[in-house]
């Protein structure tokens, strides 16, 4: 066992933001690669032990100079201890201890080692997002194992029961063992479906974080930024395709709007009413950087088109400067790629209204309204109500919004619908031009 040295730091003991969360993902990924994916639990327990030690020791003895390295070493030692104590009566115990000891001697922070850790993390992402694991479980496992989120945090972000999330994790780990999933990097014909599955999982996490729900806003934003981090990890690897870059561009450009999306009362601000000066310029720059990277090759994926749409908005400093015909054109493409997805069709209708007026937009979603599966979809009713109101068909608009209120939606969305409903009773404002 390597002695753990505590060197009190001279600074104020302030740690890097999300250090524990991110280091947890890296250490678990590294330990799991050495120990084997079937021992993911031991990897997680070892890291948990290291963080608990830090919790006991650091407040009084000071935060060590290399806090990340400290956690890495203590977790390693815990894993070595567990193996030596014979938790696994296997023949390869000495080899495992030797391998763990070897990696523990490497100074973290060394470029080669950092590279190795990134590689471990990447392998872990691919395993957690394996298509043979159910999507719900994939999402929970990625957040827990790679993202360093707790079951309670995941449950609160998804407005789900803690027991349900714990169940998904148990199921995912069982599938890893039973299906002998490995931490090998996917390659050959396997690469594309595995990459698709990872991108789908990452974008799902992003959208969950981006969706508007009551409360726990911080944890939901964390989901967006974790998805962005995972996307960038994939984008920085040698297997990145233009589609990966496009996804990162979508997420960065959309995340840029987060600061402007909710008002002080916690109410939803629609894209067209947002104060664009509050959009995060750093994220917009990042989005354009990845958008540039995504145009290599001739593949145009759904992510490419979504990124292009977000980019048109990001370029327009004011709403009046938004190039709606270009957006409508992009939505036409997206609609074709998505195989007539109702959600895309709805978003397209907003662009139709801007270019051709509310009457045409209403006609464009008429077909959706006939789809019985969408009868209880609040967003369709909300958009329809909005368009009817624009056309001054107030009674129909009010009926539509009332129907929307009866559907499943979040509190901020409900408050938004009620505000719209009030507008139906108010005299229309006439502006002199």
């Amino acid at each position, binding site marked *: 066992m390597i002695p753990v040295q505590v060197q009190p730091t001279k600074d104020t*003991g302030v740690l890097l933001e*999300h250090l524990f969360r991110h280091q947890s993902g890296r250490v678990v990924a590294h330990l799991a690669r050495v120990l084997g994916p079937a021992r993911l639990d031991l990897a997680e327990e070892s890291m*948990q032990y290291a963080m*608990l030690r830090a919790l006991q*020791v*650091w*407040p009084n003895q*000071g935060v060590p100079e290399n806090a990340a390295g400290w956690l890495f070493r203590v977790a390693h030692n815990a894993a070595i201890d567990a193996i030596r104590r014979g938790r696994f009566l296997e023949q390869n115990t000495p080899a495992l201890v030797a391998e763990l000891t070897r990696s523990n001697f490497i100074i973290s922070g060394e470029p080669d080692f950092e590279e190795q850790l990134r590689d471990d993390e990447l392998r872990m992402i691919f395993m957690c997002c394996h298509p043979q694991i159910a999507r719900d479980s994939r999402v929970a496992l990625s957040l827990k194992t790679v993202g*360093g989120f707790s079951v309670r945090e995941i449950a609160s972000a998804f407005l789900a029961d803690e027991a349900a999330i714990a169940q998904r994790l148990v199921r995912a780990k069982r599938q890893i063992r039973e299906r002998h999933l490995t931490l090998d990097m996917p390659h050959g014909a396997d690469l594309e479906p595995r990459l698709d599955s990872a991108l789908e999982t990452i974008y799902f996490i992003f959208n969950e974080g981006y969706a508007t729900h009551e409360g726990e806003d911080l944890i939901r934003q964390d989901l967006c930024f974790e998805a962005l981090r995972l996307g960038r990890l994939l984008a920085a690897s040698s297997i990145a395709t233009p589609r990966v870059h496009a996804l990162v561009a979508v997420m960065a450009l959309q995340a840029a709007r987060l600061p402007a999306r909710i008002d002080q009362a916690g109410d939803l601000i629609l894209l067209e009413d947002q104060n664009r000066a509050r959009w995060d310029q750093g994220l917009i720059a990042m989005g354009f950087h990845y958008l540039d990277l995504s145009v290599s090759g001739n593949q145009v994926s759904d992510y490419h088109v979504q990124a292009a749409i977000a980019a048109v908005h990001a370029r327009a400093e004011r709403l009046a400067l938004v190039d709606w015909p270009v957006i409508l054109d992009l939505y036409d493409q997206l609609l074709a790629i998505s195989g007539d997805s109702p959600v895309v069709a709805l978003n397209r209708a907003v662009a139709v209204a801007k270019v051709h007026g509310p009457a045409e937009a209403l006609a464009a979603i008429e077909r959706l309204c006939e789809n019985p599966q969408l009868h209880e979809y609040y967003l369709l009713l909300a958009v329809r109500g909005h368009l009817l109101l624009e056309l001054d068909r107030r009674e129909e608009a009010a009926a539509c919004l009332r129907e929307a209120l009866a559907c499943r939606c979040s509190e901020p969305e409900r408050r938004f619908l009620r505000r719209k409903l009030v507008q139906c009773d108010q005299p229309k404002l006439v502006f002199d031009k």
Partner: protein
Amino acid sequence: MPQFMLALYDDPSRWPKLSPEEMQKAIEKYTAWSKKPFVVQGKRLALDAGRVLKTSNGKPRATDGPYSETKEVLGGIYLIEAANYDEAVERTLDHPHLSHGTIELRQLFM
């Protein structure tokens, strides 16, 4: 300046349930508090029952620590400086431990 002992009690089964992010936040808060100018020192106690020493039949003996009925156990101590109890209390009111645990405050004879 008179010194006071802070005895920090809490439920240790609570800690493993914290997420990495929450653990980091807790460390940052406790560390920041420990750096306050009036803190003389702070120590964390090992998470075991310890030993109890007692004389029975004229012979001192050590036994394993007391089995605690309550969930809260003594987990750490601090020494702080303050003019009197009022100031000691005042200085302790913002201790992060109070979000979940109990602090017992006792003056030391110097």
